[in-house]
């Protein structure tokens, strides 16, 4: 069966006044129907840009080149404006990070939902209204008919995100991309929203791409995880396997920096990955993670590292052997101590 979304060798170049940036280099991704793919990485890793490329929403200055970007078998490269407008909101929808600003404050949420719906479906205003309210209920928005008539500023952040999710499902899309859907919300609401997404995905079979910087968030909801660093995929594999035994040092670093109660003794410093994500200016001439990697060796700095398959479903971009026994969580503590000095 054709995968829902296939990205092969995606590269994005952006020409600014000062430099040519290369924020995305050689990204490969696959999403099967009805599955959830989580893209994880720090800010600056390029995960949002990848999503924007799938939606065709990159700024004019960005040049996209790829061997293939195929949605349901059909290429998304070089589509006209009109073709894009028929896909966006209908077959592929996207929800963004900040629900406070995602909706137009001058119009009621009902008006905005109906406008988006009638863009893609021939419906009377009454039919559209009924459909929209039904979807608000699916997204567990209480008093849906009442909320339909309200303005965005009258709703709380969590409620707004539910509205946004409802809106994204109106045309029964095949693919839903959620870019940091819970980052701007309270921790208690985060769990609710993620559960909502998981339930919706199970019920409707929509393909879900979940983008987040918080690897802890994806454990229960993702089928596969792609870890991105500096515009490249550094590890890719089934969620459970990857989380249980991360192979790439960066993934390992991310996991050890999650403060899990009980794992870190009281009074001990929290884990983190020393250093910062490098700016996306040059084509990498070595492993992109080398400057921050506690396992680094001379070979790492000599040449760029290719993504290699560990088995059918798992891949990583590292020259270390794919053997969990060669990884040692202690190195992180040591590296943190070094930089603290």
């Amino acid at each position, binding site marked *: 069966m054709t995968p829902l979304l296939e990205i092969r060798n995606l590269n994005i170049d952006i020409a600014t006044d000062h430099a040519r940036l290369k924020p995305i280099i050689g990204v490969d991704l696959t999403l099967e129907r009805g599955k959830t793919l989580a893209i994880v990485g720090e800010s600056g890793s390029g995960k949002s840009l990848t999503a924007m490329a799938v939606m065709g929403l990159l700024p004019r200055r960005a040049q996209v080149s790829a061997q293939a970007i195929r949605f349901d078998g059909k290429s998304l490269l070089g589509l006209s404006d009109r073709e894009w407008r028929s896909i966006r909101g209908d077959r592929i929808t996207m929800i963004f990070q900040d629900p406070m600003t995602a909706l137009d404050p*001058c119009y009621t949420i009902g008006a905005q939902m109906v*406008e988006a719906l009638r863009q893609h479906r021939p419906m009377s205003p009454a039919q559209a209204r009924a459909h929209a309210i039904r979807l608000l209920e699916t997204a567990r928005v209480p008093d849906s008919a009442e909320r339909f008539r309200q303005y965005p500023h009258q709703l709380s952040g969590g409620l707004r995100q539910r509205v946004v999710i409802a809106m994204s499902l109106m045309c029964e899309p095949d693919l839903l991309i959620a870019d940091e859907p819970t980052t701007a919300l309270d921790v208690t609401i985060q769990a609710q929203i993620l559960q909502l997404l998981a339930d919706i995905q199970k019920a409707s079979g929509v393909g879900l791409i979940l983008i987040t910087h918080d690897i802890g968030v994806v454990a229960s909801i993702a089928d596969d995880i792609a870890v991105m660093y500096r515009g490249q995929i550094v590890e890719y594999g089934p969620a459970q396997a990857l989380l249980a035994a991360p192979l790439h040092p960066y993934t390992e670093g991310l996991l050890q920096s999650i403060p899990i109660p009980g794992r870190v003794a009281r009074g001990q410093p929290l884990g983190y990955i020393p250093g910062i994500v490098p700016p996306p200016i040059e084509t990498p001439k070595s492993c992109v993670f080398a400057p921050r990697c506690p396992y680094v060796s001379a070979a790492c700095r000599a040449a760029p590292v290719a993504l290699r398959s560990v088995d059918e479903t798992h891949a990583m971009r590292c020259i270390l052997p794919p053997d969990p026994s060669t990884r040692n969580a202690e190195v992180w503590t040591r590296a943190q101590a070094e930089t603290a000095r």
Partner: protein
Amino acid sequence: MLRLVIRRLAVSALVVVVVSMIAFSLVYLSGDPAVAMAGENASPSDIEAIRTDYGFDRPMYVQYGAWVDNVLHGNLGRSFFLRAPVSQIIAQHFPITATLGISALAFALLLSIPLGVLAALRPNTLIDRIALAIAVAGQAMPSFLFGLALIYVFGVKLGWLPFSGTASWRSYVLPAIALGYYATPVIMRLTRSGMLDALQSDHVRTARAYGLSTWRVVIKHALRHAIMPVLALSAVQLGFMLGGSIIIETVFSMKGLGYLAWTSIQRSDLQVIQAILLIIACLYALLTLLADLLNAYLDPRLRKQ
């Protein structure tokens, strides 16, 4: 919303009161208004007659009180020169200035807003640079000069349009352009910057993400936000135009309020001057009030305040 309206009205009322005091007392800067009105060849008895007739012998605050009382009853005094009630004279001259002002504003908006939107849609391209050039050029020319230039090119050389009097609607075209273009740069720049911001906003991104047509995105979701400060600015500009119409009316020989003000100043027809200052200031206060209320209507978030 009601609280907002009442508070704004109160402030406006206070402003109008102070402005009326200024409008009233400005003409007294000459020292003796009776002397000014009587003119150069007047005899002492003429001056005295004017003084008692117009009550200049009373204390200032009494005169002011009487004046306000009259104004509130619709009586703007009596023109010494034209021997007719001021309100009647103003009523004759006002429609021309009003037509001129509104046409000028309409011209400015019809030119600036589309230019501003286009410039924002294609920043740093040819259309943007043209719009910017128009803006820069427009601000550098005094209105009287532009008016004369228009007269020369379109009136004298090409003979397309009349350039004096107010015989037909065509007579208003050149004056409207001359009066309105000075507002064009500032309106266009504001539209452009407002649109640039609006087009970057998250909710426009959402609209695009739902495949809405460019027209919808630009007009309904972007322009609607960008237009708010432009409306307030337009009201202000209309106020300026009403105040500055005196120059255009002189250049194009139109007998509007500005022209009336001009002749009254020359003849020291003080009652008319006071009345015109008051009316134009009140109109301006009214226009800014309308602009604020309109802003509140357009942005539901502001209604709460």
